[in-house]
């Protein structure tokens, strides 16, 4: 097993832009393993995995968006919209929960269509289009129940986030890993994925090379919306409730994870492997600071310093 996976691992690690952050992650883990008793335990590692599911799933969609040189500020709100649609359909309308989940994903994907069309068809900069969508999706999410939370889902729903199959893998973590894997395969091994790099590198060159830039752009926002919706469902399972205020300012966390992972905001470079590193850095950092018992305000300062260091290290390494 180890032998076979080594080249793939190497390919993962060699991904441009993520080496510095990866070193940062390793150092961080090493430090925490020494400084705390509880960090380097199976149980805590599994906790960390649990804790990054929502961020991880959204970060994959965000990676696509940022790769083509765009940005998606709406993910936090779309997450809330998705979970509210799911909760409303299942608990107020009596729709079976699986079907309600599908509808929630469709609604979330639809927000991506709107953002994408605003960007490609109306020439609205991605920042503004998704900022507008952020406000709209949050408003609609709130209107569904007039700001109230919804509780009372079937027991199996919450259990998806709790039961660790085979002793370690909850369904929600499994979903995240599948999303990581699919995203990685897509970017590395399909022409569609390569097209995103071309678009991000130079949209005009991509267009002249016969790539349908508009369609790809809309597609990318749809995927980002869809994954935000999926993250909403996962979060609902974790919390066993849905509330329209969920996901507030998650867009910044998500973008930060992607950028820390070496995907450039100007588009064209980066990838999922880096994003996984970025997500882990944020997850481990938060977890570790809690385990160290660092006071909340000091945590903010430390998080800022570590983020700056991780990215500066990569920039230095390149020189």
């Amino acid at each position, binding site marked *: 097993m180890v032998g076979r996976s080594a080249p793939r691992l190497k390919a993962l690690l060699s991904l441009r832009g993520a080496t510095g952050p990866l070193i940062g992650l390793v150092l961080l883990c090493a430090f925490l393993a020494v400084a705390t008793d509880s960090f380097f335990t199976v149980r805590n590692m599994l906790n960390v995995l649990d804790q990054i599911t929502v961020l991880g799933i959204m970060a994959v969609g965000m990676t696509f968006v940022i790769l083509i040189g765009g940005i998606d500020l709406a993910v936090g709100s779309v997450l809330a919209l998705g979970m509210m649609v799911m909760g409303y359909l299942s608990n107020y309308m009596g729709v079976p929960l699986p079907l309600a989940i599908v509808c929630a994903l469709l609604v979330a994907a639809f927000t991506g269509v709107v953002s994408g069309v605003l960007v490609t068809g109306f020439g609205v900069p991605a920042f503004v289009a998704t900022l507008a969508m952020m406000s709209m999706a949050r408003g609609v999410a709130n209107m569904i129940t007039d700001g109230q939370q919804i509780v009372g889902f079937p027991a199996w729903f919450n259990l998806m986030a709790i039961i660790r199959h085979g002793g370690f893998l909850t369904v929600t973590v499994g979903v995240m890993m599948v999303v990581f894997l699919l995203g990685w395969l897509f970017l590395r*091994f399909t*022409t569609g994925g*390569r097209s995103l790099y*071309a678009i991000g*590198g130079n949209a005009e*060159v991509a267009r002249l090379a*016969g790539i*349908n830039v508009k369609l790809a752009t809309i597609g990318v926002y749809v995927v980002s919306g869809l994954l935000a919706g999926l993250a909403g469902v996962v979060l609902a399972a974790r919390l066993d409730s849905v509330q329209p205020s969920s996901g507030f300012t998650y867009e910044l966390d998500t973008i930060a994870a992607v950028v820390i992972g070496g995907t450039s905001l100007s588009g*064209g*470079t980066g990838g999922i492997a880096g994003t996984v590193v970025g997500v882990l850095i944020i997850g481990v950092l938060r977890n570790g600071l809690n385990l160290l018992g660092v006071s909340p305000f000091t945590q903010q300062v430390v998080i800022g310093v570590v983020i700056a260091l991780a990215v500066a290290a990569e920039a230095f390494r390149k020189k």
Partner: protein
Amino acid sequence: MTSPSQKPILSLEGIRKSYGQLEVLHGIDFDVHAGEVVALLGENGAGKSTVSGIIAGSIQATTGRMEWLGEPFEPASPRQAIDAGIGLIHQELRLLPHLSIAENVFVGRWPTKNGVVDRAKMVRDAQEQLDRLGLKIPATRLVDGLSTAAQQLIEIAKRLALNARLLILDEPTSALGGAETEKLFEQIKRLKAEGVGIIYISHRLEEIARVSDRIVVLRDGEKVNEFDSGDVPVRAIVESMVGRKLGRMFPQIPEPKDEIVLEVEDLSAPTGAFKDVNFDVRKGEIFGIAGLVGAGRTELVRALVGADPISQGRVRLDGEDITPRKPADAIRRGIVLVPEDRKLQGLVLEHSLTENLGYANKRSISAAGIVSKKRLIEFAQDAIKRFGVKGYWHQNADELSGGNQQKLVIAKWLARGPEIVVLDEPTRGIDVGARSSIYDIIVELAERGVGVIVVSSDLEEVLGVSNRILVMSHGRQTGILERNEASEVSVMELATS
């Protein structure tokens, strides 16, 4: 002219430059005197732009000495060089699209009055420079949307306005037509008379005899020859550049087949950049398109491949209407364009050669949408070798010299095995050796029955390679000349009518 006893204004001694392990300049020495034009020649990648960059402070030499006006000189930034009186016209166009022409001309050196930017003076002075170069565009216009040639003229105006004592022109004429080139030479003459020293870099060797007083030839980062007169036979220059004897520049042009592949009927652009264009291209024909700068040739060929909209007219391939709406339509039918601006339209500069080659050749590197890394790399290595690109598959495109970038773009499109190839200024910035190899490629394409359309501002080139030549003027087609009736005079007549 210059007297040898006079001290040089600039002298280089043992200039070396390395990028990591790789040394690209191995000790360059030469002098420039006041009022003298030194031509700096060499193949693509010989190190001409690197030397210019070092003199102009945008690149720092690894070792070596420079003297400027008798003082040791080691500019750490472009500012220092500019302040010392050295101006560099870059090989690549570097203008700010969202600013006015006037502002581009004076960027970094805005004229001020009472500590405030003097816009009126800026526009006046910029307009004066444009007039000198024969560019009839108001200086208050934004640069965005101007043709490559116009942009190159602005780039030149920018440096002429410097009032520098040494001016480096790195391929100033690569996108210019004959008339614009004449205007530039007038300016060079004026500057010489004013005692300005000039380093002139060009791959158009026929220009060299006309402007230069001295020739310095580089090969692979070394100075291989220096001629004390500009009036050296082109053949001699070329041979010292490439280090071997060279055959004819233009190969034998094959006769096209009778079968017509491409028909263009009444084609017009919504912008009016071209109107009612009609022509056809036969199998194996090399079809030239000539005209003055701004004649609308680029717009025409871009429309032909679906890159720009068409308001009226039809394009037929093998008798079938295929009027393209988007580039993919044309590419699918085997019509490809090598665009005129390699940086903005041809390459993703921060990506590797391999990636760049892959973007236009999905079919060759993937099956059912799944890319095979191995096939991708093999494909790229093969294309790099076949088209003589000096570079490695894993290098980024922006590490290549300008000429090699151009070859990379050509390689990217030809590797598909297209049916119709459109080349817009295919040899812009390409050295003589490489140029003749591109002509060989064109002829080889024609021999295989591919229809080739060549747009060029270089008259000699269009005349040299084309079976027939379409001439355009102000967006209209003014005539189609057969090879035997085409000459500089007949083309220019139509181009200016």
